[in-house]
């Protein structure tokens, strides 16, 4: 309990510093947006900063920087399924049913022998 109390005491300063850093990163995100960069670049910058902020919240406020391996295991599974979920939009663009060009020399419907 003693060491627990000591470690919490040390963490308090970190919590406020991370809070301040999150404020600064938010201001930077908005400032970058005011510059009106090209859309792909603006998306990249905004998402990098958001990921950085999210990592800070997760690792410090949610104590993920020093958690038990069961928690990490559950999160690894979540991340795997989350990645699949984020890939769903690209699966929809791979779907070419009804849009594929017919092969050269082959009629669009039926086989050549059918005529």
């Amino acid at each position, binding site marked *: 309990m003693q060491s627990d109390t000591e470690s919490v*005491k040390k963490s308090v300063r970190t919590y406020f510093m991370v809070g301040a850093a999150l404020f600064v990163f*938010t201001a930077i995100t908005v400032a970058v*947006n005011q510059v009106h960069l090209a859309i792909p670049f*603006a998306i990249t910058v905004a*998402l990098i*900063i958001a990921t950085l902020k999210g990592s800070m919240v997760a690792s410090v406020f949610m104590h993920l920087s020093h958690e038990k391996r069961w928690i990490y295991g559950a999160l690894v599974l*979540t991340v795997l399924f989350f990645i699949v979920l984020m890939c*769903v939009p690209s699966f929809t*663009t791979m779907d070419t049913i009804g849009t594929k060009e017919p092969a050269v020399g082959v009629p669009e419907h039926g086989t050549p022998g059918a005529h």
Partner: protein
Amino acid sequence: MNIPYTVETRPDTGLANGKLGIWLFLGSEVMLFGALFSTYIILRNGAPEWPHGELNVWLGMTNTFILIASSVTMVMAWASLKLNNWRRHRLFLILTFVLAAVFLVNKYFEYSSHFARGEGPWHSTFLAIYYTLTGLHGLHILGGMIVMSYFIGPGAKMWKTSPEQFANRIEYTGLYWHFVDLVWIFLFPVLYLL
């Protein structure tokens, strides 16, 4: 009979049951919001053009600051319990509750100004996904406020009977609250800036 492993850790997982439970719940929440973010990507990629500057960036930024501040006060509410400082815990938990309420009030004004201009979810694809994402997030804020109000009110008496269990409950509430903050950290740039 007491429920086992509410305070002491299980020998196999090294965790109290509540801790693993809240993380599994948060995993399901990631999938819920992930599905909606995925929907956003599909809608945006499929749209011939996507509106910019429809939302008030400054109001969105203010709400981001409010949620970040509430995350700091929430973690401080838990840390104060660990440091055995009940008065500071109460102060920080009530502050978190107030900040959450201010967030929702801001959101109310934001929604009102859109509806006054006839910009409901039916107005465009962008506003449909905007209301869905922010509405669901707002419901999570409301849920967090209900839990916090319980620990500010009737649930607070547990501190006298079982302080460690109470501290664990505040920690789990905090984990949920930080997750809600984390979702907003992504919602803000995706909806307001890009």
